[in-house]
């Protein structure tokens, strides 16, 4: 299984990963359009919210079977089948499946690794586990 592993304690809140992700998929730098979210914790520090490819509740919930798991174990949305109901967003226990104003379909981390390079503290890395 391939996924983006996060280390909250290393994150300094620079939001570079969000910029990288949003640019990569939406060609614009809008934090809400990033599949990884940097959340400031009330007591200081940051929490990184991103799909760990593990829960897979969305896969069972999707009424059209638009969500499947690819060969590398990554949870993928087939936009041709998706009818934008956002049941997947509601059912995700870690808020990693996302919806954003102005975007028709939900989106999520596909473990592409684009954001990793931008992170100055190695708070995120792509790992592959059995």
């Amino acid at each position, binding site marked *: 299984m391939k996924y983006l592993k996060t280390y909250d304690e290393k994150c300094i809140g620079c939001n570079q990963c969000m910029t990288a992700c949003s640019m990569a998929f939406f060609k614009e730098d809008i934090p809400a359009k990033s599949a990884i979210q940097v959340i400031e914790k009330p007591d200081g520090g940051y929490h990184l919210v991103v799909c760990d490819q593990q829960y897979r509740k969305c896969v*069972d*919930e*999707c*009424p*059209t*079977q638009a969500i499947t798991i690819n060969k590398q174990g990554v949870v993928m949305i087939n936009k041709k*089948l*998706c*009818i*934008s*109901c*956002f*049941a997947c*967003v*509601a*059912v995700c226990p870690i808020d990693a499946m996302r*919806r954003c*104003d*102005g975007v*028709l*379909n939900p989106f999520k981390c596909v473990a592409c690794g684009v954001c990793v390079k931008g992170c100055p503290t190695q708070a995120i890395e792509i790992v592959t586990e059995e």
Partner: protein
Amino acid sequence: MNNTKIHTDVDALKARHVLLKEFRYELRPVVRGYNMRTLYVNVSSNEIREKPVSEEMKQKFTGGKGFGLKLLWDAISDTTRWNDPENEINIAMGPICGNTNYPGSGKSLVVSISPLTDIPIDSNVGGYFGPYLKFSGFDAIEIQGKAERDVIVYIDGNQGLIQIFEAPAEAVDSHILAEQMVELFADNDLEKMHISAVSAGRGAEHALIGCLNFSFYDRRRKVARLKQAGRGGIGTVLRDKKIKAVVVKYSGLSGKSNDPADLDTLQRTGLKLHKEIIALDDQQCRMRQIGTAHLVEIMDEYDLLPTHNFKFGRHADSPKINSHAFYELVTHGLPDGCWFGCTMACAKAADGFELVTGPYQGQRVTVDGPEYETVGGCGSNVGIFNPRAIMEINFYCDTYGLDTISFGTMTAFIMECWEKGVLNAERTGGLDFTWGNWRDTLEMMHQIARGEGFGLIAGLGTRKMKEYFIDHFDADPQLMQDIGCECKGLEYSQYVSKESLAQQGGYSMALKGPQHDEAWLIFMDMVNNQIPTFTDKAEALHYFPMFRTWFGLQGLCKLPWNDVEPANNAQTDEPAKVPEHVQNYVDIYNAITGGNLNKKELILQSERVYNFQKVLCMRLGRGRRSDDIPPFRMMGPVTVEEYESRQDRYDQQLREKVGVDPAGKSSEEKLRILRHYREEQYQHLLNAVYKRKGWTSEGVPTPEHLRKIGMDLPEVLAVVERHLR
């Protein structure tokens, strides 16, 4: 899913098709929730044409049931009966219908003159037909005429093509027919999901309680599943028109298919409710786990579960058929919405269910359900406390095209007639209707499907059976009237309304007949005592029917309105209304249509159509005050046995409400006094409610009221004036 495979020889079916008519239409996208045209199909003349929807029609009738009723009004005469060719089956959707965001947005509204009531019936049904028809280009389909031989009407919403063809080889029973339609019209596996059929079954050919099945293909189960437009015999009308199926195919559904004015608000509001359901349903209604069957134990606890023909409200054996028993039978973990985006997902089903009777005996099938109404009607009300038997009855009702609610209530009547000696083995052709005899209950249903024996009498429904038993078996007319649980000719749905005056009104004032979809006030009235006075009850019997009518104008499901509630709902001003959800509806209506509706105007939209429907009933010679009177079984104890089963409650009522000391009086005497009191109370209720609704004491909407709500169309006023004279 371990089902017995249904083999479809597509070539053999096609070889026997005879094309009668082909019609091409211009494809146009939906604009802000509307197509502004409807589809007219006549299976006598094979005429097919589009009809424009005028701005006035949209303003006055909104959509859904409003459109269906308007088209029906224009198509019939004052004397049209259910089996006249000019009677129609109208399936209409509404502006909100078909959105994939807000749970419960895929309903079709079916309207027709009912064989049971002789007035318009309206039925709200899931499945994919309505939304697909809408995105194929029509706000409604209007089907008139009678075919000579069995036909299928096919609408291809991607090609803009409509066909009527003779289809002699297809099955009539829905579970097979729906599979055949998928095989026939899908070009590949994925397209199966894009096909939906409306059909009935062999039972609907011989009984007046026929229902329609609306199919939806379940990709995971690989089964064409069925949702029912159950009430009022529309399946009977379909088969009388010799229509085997009306089929639609539409590929291309998206989150924008309705062309919403404000996609973000629509998505956000839908997502808010999804999250509420995911977070709270497990602690609230458990709809995602077991659907409406969760109600069985609640109704039993509150003495409201119909038992032995509504005599009682609970039974020692009811735990055998509670939600936990059915939980064991249905398949779990699947997204069981009857339309995309319904995370309430109450459309449960058992798979690989082995049948033990009838023509499909030994086969393993998917059974859609059971819903609460089926458990109440075909379970406790007939004394059947065997979950597998209830599932089998459910399955055969569906595939034969019979309404489980009417079937349950009328069988309960039959069983009580058996108990009271009105029926015996000689009169039933050997069938034994002792409470709980599920084998003979099923055999009666198979007789209906075969068109033979006692099944033919039963298939007439409760009202006509009463007359039959009086005429042929010398039954006591008063007893028949008291225990035959129908009003206006329609069988009651499955709640005991005896101890709730407001619900007695909710049932028997419901325009189409006693279905609880206009008002369900038992908890407000009986349990929580929130509407103690006549004025309170009248207000509730105004607001809730109007609010609930709106679902039918929009193509919405009622369940996500109050079968899940926001966490803080109890702290709001009017928890029974679920104010936040009402606001959601206003928001999604405006988001789709670009309109500027508020909560008050929402009610006004309903009031127009509601009063129109009432006047349509009057035009057909009904809709009178006398049509709104329930049988006494639904108002109180008919027999000493019932009185004594709730003696404390009734004695107390005599003391406190009637001012009569029950001490020293016989049960018969107390029964008589209580009955007199309750019948009088009911008349007071009618007076109060009619007044609140803007009607005369005879139940006629006044011209002033019609003007006030904007339903003063000349043809409507003409009928009203005829009745005021």
